[in-house]
Every structure is written in C-alpha cells, then in structure tokens.
C-alpha cells in the first residue's frame, strides 16, 4: 500500500509541566525518530494547535502525549477538549501518569485516550505509539474492506483477495 507521508517524520506534541519529564519524553521521542514539540501546559498545547484562537494554524500534529497531573488543565481536560474539537478529534492522544490508579486509567481510556503510560515512560512504551499513528493512514483501506464484507458476506476468499490493496 502507498503511504504518502512515509518519508516525513511523525510530529508528536508532548505536554508536561515538569521540566525533567519534558526533557525525558522529548529525548525518548526523538530517539524513536519522531519530530517533537514540547510544551508545559494544556493551555499552551491548545494554543499551539490553534484551538484557542480563530486563526487557523497550519500545524500538523500526528499524536499528542500528555501528563495527567498538571495545574490548571489536567491531561484529561486536554484530552476532552481535543476529542470535542471537530478539527482535532482524530488525533490520537496518550496519557502519562506517575500514579497507578485504575479508575483514572479507565476514565482516560473511556474518554478517548489510545494508551495510558505509567511513568517513568520507557522506550518500549514509546514503541507502542507507532501502530496508533500507522492506523490513521490505513483507515480508508480498512473501511473499504469492511464494507465489502458486509455487502457480500459469502464472498469467497479468492474473490476477496482480489480486492486487497497492496
């Protein structure tokens, strides 16, 4: 299959109010070949995306990774704002937290977060991000396949294979 932007690095927006954690997550992401923008608050994240003003920012963000515990706007608040925005609701959001609280984790996942990482975040966690990014470019391909299945469920495998996009 063809992925138009396969040569371009994915751009991740990292949000964390702690300097050390910001530095660490930035390094983890860069080591994994992502382009990174790091900000220290949910408000700044929204500003960067252009949600706080009417000027349309020409900013392309492929994923947002945010700390949960932040003063003012928590990571959950930011998650909801992103998911409620028509322009940005499809951007995958990942939440990080140093506290292992199941109800918090569930709330975030139910609120639309793709993943919830416990801090300290490891390289192995960052590796889990790639499928969420790849998934976006595959959406059209999968939708087509699924629709074909529904239309004609007794289709033979051979016929179905013909329709596969390579």
């Amino acid at each position, binding site marked *: 299959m063809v992925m138009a932007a396969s040569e371009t690095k994915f751009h991740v927006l990292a949000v964390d109010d*702690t*300097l*050390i*954690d910001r*530095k*660490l997550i930035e*390094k*983890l992401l*860069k*080591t994994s070949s992502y382009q990174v923008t790091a900000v220290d608050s949910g408000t700044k994240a929204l500003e960067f995306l252009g949600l706080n003003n009417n000027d349309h920012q020409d900013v392309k963000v492929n994923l947002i990774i945010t700390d949960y*515990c932040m003063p003012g706007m928590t990571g959950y608040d930011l998650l909801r704002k992103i998911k409620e925005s028509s322009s940005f609701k499809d951007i995958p959001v990942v939440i990080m937290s*140093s506290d292992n609280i199941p109800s918090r984790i569930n709330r975030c996942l139910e609120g639309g977060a793709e993943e919830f990482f416990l*801090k*300290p975040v*490891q*390289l192995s966690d960052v590796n889990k991000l790639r499928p969420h990014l790849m998934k976006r470019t595959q959406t059209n391909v999968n939708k087509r396949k699924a629709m074909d299945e529904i239309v004609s469920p007794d289709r033979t495998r051979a016929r179905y294979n013909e329709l596969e996009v390579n």
Partner: protein
Amino acid sequence: MDRNRLHNQVASMRRSLFDQLEELQDDTNPNFVQEVVTLFYNDSTRLIQNIEQALNSRPIDFCKLDDYMHQFKGSSSSIGAKKVTNECTAFREYCNAENAEGCIRSFQQVKQEHAILKRKLEVYLQTVRQASQTA
C-alpha cells in the same frame, strides 16, 4: 590511559546509576545524562527545602506538602532513583492521612536517601568534568 580510565569510569557509573537514561545518551546529545542529572540535582534540592519549610509552618498545609512531594517523587522516579521514590510514597501516605508526626519522621528518611543519592550524583558529575578535561 588516564583519559580512557576516566571515560570508562563515567560510562560504568552512568550504567549503574541510570539504566534508562544511559540508553538515551547518544552522539546527537552526548551530554544528555549530565544535563538531566544536573536538572534533577538542582530541582530536588529546591523541593526538599520547600518541603522542609512547609513542615515547619503551623498549621501544616498538607495540600501544599502533597503537591511538593508529588513533584519530587515524580522527578526521582523519572531518573530511576528507586529508594528515594519509595520513601516519597511512604511520606505521601502520612500526608494523605494528615499525620504530621508521620510526615516529619518519614521526611527524615526521604532526606537521608536523597543525601546519599546527591553524593553519588556529585561524584558522577565530578568524574564527567574530569573526563571532559582530559578529552
């Protein structure tokens, strides 16, 4: 040979102190661990002072205490300082229970572990400086 010895020393200290950080240091940012360590060193010292002050004020503001300790625990955990992080967890339990005496006792443990860690970090940073001077 002195240069090699120092560089090897730095590398082995880094490995033993900071598993994960070590993985992140590379040619594009050869001072990464040093920067993070310095950041932590300054940041944690400041937080310890804040916590000390908060514990000395009457009445004790447990909310503020928990806030400081949350930050402190967060950065300790981020650089892989397990012992300090564990003492912080104990402290926060006393804090949540608003147990002043428990907090004060627990904080002594936190300070102790932090002091041990600081000494290790100082030696590490010193060795790094020496190694860069012979480079």
